[in-house]
Each structure stands twice: as C-alpha cells, then as structure tokens.
C-alpha cells in the first residue's frame, strides 16, 4: 500500500486521517459526557417529582393511616406524570416491594424485587431498557413505610443524545475540511526544504550516468555525496582511458 504513495501523499493522507479520527473521537467523548449530563438532568427532575409525592404521602401517613388506606393517592400520581412527561408510571410500593398504588393500574399487585435499600436519598437503577428512580417513605416514627418508584423510558436521554451526536458529528466533519486543507498545506510547506534537498541529490546522482557536471546544480547536499560522485567519476574516467588504450592497441594490431 505504502509502496505506491509518495511521502507528500502519505503525509496528506495521514493528516486527513488524524483530523477525522480526532473529530470522531472527540464527538464520541462529548456525546458520552452529554448523555451523562442529560441523565443527571432527568434524575434531578425525577428527584423533584419524587420529593413532591413523598412530602404529600408522608403528611398523610403522619395522620396515622396505613399506606394502603391513604386517600387521594391516584390523582397525586397522575399529577406527577403530568409534571414529567417522560415518566411511564409512578408507583407506591409497600415494605415488601408490592405495588399498592400506580398511575398504571395493571401494575397494582406486582412485586418489584431487587430495588436498592432506602437510604433517604433518591436512587436510580437501569432495568430492562428503562430507568427506575425511587425514594423511601418514612413514618413520623422513623420507620420505613415503603417506596415511591418512578419508571422512566430509557429513551428519555438516548434520543436527545442521538440528536446531539448527529449535530456534533456533522458540524465536526464540516469543520474538519478546512482543518485538513490547512494541515495539508502546512505539512507540504514543511516538506519543501527536504524535498528540494533530496531532488538535488537525485539530480547529482543522475548526472553521473549522463557525463554531466554533478556540481552545476547549485545547492548540493553535503558529504558523503561529493566523495561518492568523485569516486564514481574517477572510476569512469579511468575506464574511459583504459578503453581508449585498448582501442588504440586494437588499431595498432
């Protein structure tokens, strides 16, 4: 592959690859960062929604009612869905992980196993392409009464991230074109000096087979080229002289 391309072409190709790879790598890095930031924004939004429900439910729990007997929970959960359109469902779980209330009626009675323990803070867990955000419910006696779990579509950050990646990728590639041209011009300018020097070497060596003056070219590179050219020319002169002698002897005979 490399054998068919000269150095300037290889350098230009290398610089183009470097710029394209750098653009794509940075796009990937920024996209990953943006995905993380968008997730944090979604988590923050979910945290607020969960906090609102928690406050409302704990106020009612503090009246001494059991979790399953709390009134007006369904409108609260439906309102929470309205506060965050990406939410698939909001569920209130009892201490055993069984869904007691949910904005999606089919979930009521289901048991959600493997949820993180209640630490008093909002937790997040990825499960089956969805994100679960949750927070514990505490009674006024500091005992756990269950959890509130928000189910959010996994696409909530994926779709904006994809849009971001596409936007950045296209913009980056458009920017890459002038950078490639600029780098190519700078690279070729850098190679100009060595190219001239090597051209002078080539012309000096080519002149040895043409019986021309190797030093008529001006800027000829330093040793060992003059010594080599001298050695070759001396040998060629010696051979020419010996050939003349042999021809003379041939004619004499």
């Amino acid at each position: 592959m490399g054998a068919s391309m000269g150095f300037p072409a290889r350098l230009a190709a290398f610089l183009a690859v470097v710029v394209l790879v750098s653009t794509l790598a940075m796009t990937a890095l920024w996209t990953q960062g943006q995905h993380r930031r968008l997730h944090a924004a979604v988590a923050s939004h979910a945290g607020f929604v969960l906090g609102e429900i928690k406050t409302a439910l704990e106020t009612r729990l503090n009246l001494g009612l059991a979790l399953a007997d709390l009134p007006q929970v369904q409108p609260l959960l439906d309102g929470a869905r309205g506060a965050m359109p990406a939410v698939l469902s909001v569920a209130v779980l009892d201490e055993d992980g069984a869904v007691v209330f949910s904005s999606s009626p089919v979930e009521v009675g289901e048991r959600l196993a493997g949820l993180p323990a209640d630490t008093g803070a909002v937790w997040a867990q990825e499960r089956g392409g969805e994100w679960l955000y949750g927070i514990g419910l505490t009674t006024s006696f500091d005992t756990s009464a269950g959890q509130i779990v928000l189910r959010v579509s996994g696409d909530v950050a994926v779709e904006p991230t994809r849009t971001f990646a596409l936007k950045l990728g296209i913009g980056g590639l458009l920017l890459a074109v002038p950078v490639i041209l600029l780098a190519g011009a700078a690279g070729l300018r850098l190679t100009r000096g060595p190219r001239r020097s090597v051209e002078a070497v080539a012309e000096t060596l080519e002149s040895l087979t043409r019986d021309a003056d190797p030093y008529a070219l001006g800027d000829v590179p330093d040793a060992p080229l003059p010594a080599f050219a001298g050695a070759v020319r001396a040998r060629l002169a010696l051979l020419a002289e010996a050939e003349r002698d042999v021809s003379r002897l041939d004619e004499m005979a």
Partner: protein
Amino acid sequence: MTAIVPTRRFTLGIAGTAAGAALLAMAGVGVLGTLAAEEQLAEARLAKAAAVGHAVQRDLHRALGHGIPLDRVEGMTAYLQGIAERNPDLHRLAVTAADGRTLHAAGPGAAEGPSAVRLPLQAGSAPGSAVVGHLLVAVDPGAARAQIAGELMGVVLGAAALLLLVAELAGALVQAAVRSPLGRLERALAAGAAGDFGTLLGRRPRDQVGRALLAFNAAVFHLHERRQRFAAHAEEVRGAVFDPGIAEQVEQTRARALERLGDGGAAAPRRVADPRPGDARAYAALLSAALVSGCLGSLDAAIGLAALFGLAVGWSVPSSWTRIDTALAAVALGAAALLGAGPMVGAAGAVGLAVAARYARAAGEDAPSILRPILTGALAALLWSAARGTPGAAVEAAVLAAAALPAVLPLVRRP
C-alpha cells in the same frame, strides 16, 4: 550545503503539524459541543423549572382559593427558600403581584430572562378568573456552561491520549518514509566513496526519495556495466590480435585498470533486503494501546498468564512469519476485545508486541526505540480510559487493533 537526512527538527515539525491539526479539530468539536450541550441542558432544566412552577402554582392556587391575598400568604418565602435549597439548579423563585412587584422570593439570581418560566396566578379556579400575580422560576443560564467546564478534565485527558498517539505515529511515518531510506542512501554513498559499489537500495515509491535511491542504483549499475563492458572488450581484443606483444599489452592495460578500479565493483551489485527497523513503531504503539484498552476492565491473573504465554510464543516464532503473525495478532486482539475474551486479548496482544519487538531488535533498533511506542500506546489507552470513565472499552480496542493492520504491511517487505 545541506544534510541528506532531514534533521530531528523536521520530524518534530511534522509531528507538531499533525498534533496541531488534531488539536484544532478537537477544539472545534469542543466549541460546537459546548454550544449544543448548553442548548439541550437549558431545555432539560427549563422542563424541571416548569414542573417546579406547576407544583408551586397548585399550592398557591389552593391558598388563593381560600381567599388569602398573595401578599398575606404566611411562610411563603420560607417555602420558596426550601424548594430553592433542595433544588440548587434553580436560580430564583419569585411570586410577583399583578403590577410586577416582587412579593416573595428565594434564590440568588434574577427571575427574569430567557431561562425563566412565568406562570399566572389566578384568584379562583374557574377559567377566566382574574390574574392576581405571577410565579417565576428561573434557572441559571450559565449553569450548563459551568457544569461543562467542571467536566472538562475528561475531555483534556482524551485529547492528551489522542495527541500522544498522533505524535508517535507521525514520528514513525517520517522515520519510515524519509529518515530511514535517506539514512540508508547516506550509508550506501559513504560505502561507495570508500570503493564499495556492491549494494543496490530497495524499491521506493516514485517520489523524491524514490528518485534519489533509483538514481543511486543507476549510478552503481552504470559503473558496474562500464567495468564489465571494458573487461569483455579487452578480453575480446586480446584474443583477436595475432601479435603476442600487443596481446600482452592489452592484458596489462586490462589488469592495471581493474586493479585501480578495486574489488568493490567486481561483483554484480545486489539488492539487499533492508530490515527497516522504524516500521515496527506504529504497529507497536497501536497494538499496545489496543491491548491495554481491551484488558483494563478485567485485569486478572488469567490475563497475566495469557500475556506471558503470548510473549513466549511471539518471541519464538520464525522470523519469516513476522508479517502473518503480526496481522493475525491484531485481528485476534480486535475480535477477542469485541467478544470480551480477556485472556485471549492478553495473549494476542502480547504475541504481536513480542514479534514487533523481536523484529526491531533483529533490525538493529535499540531497546528504547521500541519500548517508547509501546509505553506511549499504553499511556494513551490509560488516559483515554480515564477520560471515558469506563475501563476496558471493547470498541476502542478493536478499532486500534484494526488500525494497526496497515502498519503490518511494511514489515519484512521484500526488497
């Protein structure tokens, strides 16, 4: 007068140009990324601000429904303060009267501006009730940029990883394409100046360097051809003349000329296979980066043992297998990384690195010259992994291993 082989400054210049181009491209992506990220994050924050606003609006409507005027709602400022403290990404919450006066407020910023949600507060629940004020929830317009700036270290580490690899590969390119062949030409010229014309230089692309090597070969071959022609002509004349005296003189002229020409041009010049030690550098840097990327997430004793086994195998295979070995090692490493087969990643990568190191050593390269690209590749992989925050990135390992494949082609190329 100038030197035939470009100085190290030329190599540094090319490496600097490549690194500068990469930096420029990365900076451009960074600016675009910051602008696009700010726009998206502002939307996400405003969505949360709207949710907060609707929740507060609901509570205020309840108070207004009981006939309590907005400026008389007890504990309103403390309530808003509590929300602002629990949601530090909210810059300002404020309740204003119908004439725009601020009645209650919390948070350090201003409530007006493009990054704020403004919701009407109505006296009654019936549609068309009089608007008695507004609720404003604002997010900090500079918060997204501050968040991005706080996470810039990851981008800087990723950029450093790329720049390290780019500089190493640029150095390897200049070494393989310019410095190495011109160094060989310089040595061959010195040998010729000392009377040794027995070497022809290897094939090169038809660029300036290739033209110079071709011209050298032509000069050497021309000298050899002239010598052969003269010897043959003298031999022919000596055999053709009847006068023994002249035949003797021809023989003496021939012997004297050949003696003065020396032994250096007696044998036909041979094209000598050139080991080209610099060719292994790009391969070693890329494969080392792939190996470290592929192993980082699951480094254990099994991978260590597999790597040791790979080193032993790579060091002991016949040198004629170099090209096939290195190609197979790169393909196996890429495939193993994608499949998540840690020990196979270690073994394949170690085989490739051992073959490259042995090749460079056999070609007369000193240890630092091959160790440097290996360490550069490993360091670049570590920096990239730190930037991503995810060790053991399979895709990166596979891509780097695939990128190492073209670098295999120059290894042990026939002269």
